[in-house]
């Protein structure tokens, strides 16, 4: 109580204290990096995130705040699910240099069973504004089209240019259109239940955006050598 909370917040380059409405689980990647730093001691270069291979002193994991688009059963043409992904970029200040923006689509835990049919993941940018008021945002520029045999585990997409572009245009959010198509392969001899796979993907799909920035003011090597 003796010192001003405001001073120490400013000292830590934080604008204000937080009062989160909901507690988020600590993402595994951040917990792993934090524990490695705690264990590593002072000798390591902590402005380099060796787990990700990029420079950075501030890592933010942004949760997806979007919604599924088609609530009906998977359609006949194999369209498994369509989801609008929405990330609030307002926390990312221009001060830092963006060194990484990685979208992770976690398709569910790995297992040796019910691999399911091969799927195609299509990721596009939603350009339009005010998308919240529209029931079905339209996909714009395609960012990625990836075929995934046996959809399980995490998929990573490099969105650094997209996020940098949003930042430079002072756009404080990023909307993405995600579509997953299931391909039933009649020749493999295995009969995949497309519907089951789609339902499983819908249930377990989890999207997040990891943004890494580097603030050069906070990363100076100490110059004094002891006598």
């Amino acid at each position: 109580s003796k010192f001003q909370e405001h001073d120490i917040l400013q000292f830590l380059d934080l604008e204000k204290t937080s009062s989160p409405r909901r507690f988020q689980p600590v993402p595994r990647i951040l917990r792993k990096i934090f524990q490695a730093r705690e264990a590593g001691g002072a000798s390591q270069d902590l402005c380099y995130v060796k787990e990700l291979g990029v420079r950075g002193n501030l890592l933010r994991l942004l949760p997806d705040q979007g919604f599924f688009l088609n609530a009906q059963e998977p359609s006949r043409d194999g369209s498994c699910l369509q989801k609008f992904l929405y990330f609030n970029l307002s926390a990312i200040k221009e001060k830092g240099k963006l060194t990484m923006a990685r979208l992770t689509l976690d398709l569910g835990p790995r297992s040796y069973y019910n691999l399911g049919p091969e799927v195609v993941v299509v990721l596009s940018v939603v350009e339009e504004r005010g998308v919240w008021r529209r029931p079905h945002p339209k996909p714009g520029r395609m960012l990625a089209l990836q075929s995934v045999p046996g959809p399980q585990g995490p998929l990573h997409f490099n969105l650094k240019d997209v996020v940098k572009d949003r930042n430079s245009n002072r756009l404080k959010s990023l909307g993405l259109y995600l579509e997953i198509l299931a391909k039933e392969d009649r020749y493999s001899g295995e009969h995949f239940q497309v519907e089951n796979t789609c339902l499983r993907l819908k249930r377990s799909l989890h999207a997040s955006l990891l943004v890494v920035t580097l603030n050069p003011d906070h990363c100076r090597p100490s110059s004094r050598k002891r006598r």
Partner: protein
Amino acid sequence: AAIPVPKGSCKNLCHRHQLFVSFQDLGWHKWVIAPKGFMANYCHGDCPFSMATYLNSSNYAFMQALMHVVDPKVPKAICIPTKLSPISMLYQDNDENVILRHYEDMVVDECGCG
């Protein structure tokens, strides 16, 4: 000539003082996930000329102390951090983002005369 080492308690000599800032005390424990707080150690104590060659001193501290002996108007050598280490903070902001932030040179590990 050999300089006699002063008798008396070395408590007044330059050394590191430990201070732990608890996030619980600050009321920040609801949004700071880890650590529980950080060490806000500080350096304090005398840097007498006779000890300058012992107290983890730099060259110029020795000269500073020497000049102070010759001319008391010259300020004494002072007790400063000589080794610092970083801290990392894992916390949640108001937008439900989970953030890992690193701060360089935050914790005083060693003090010396400078």
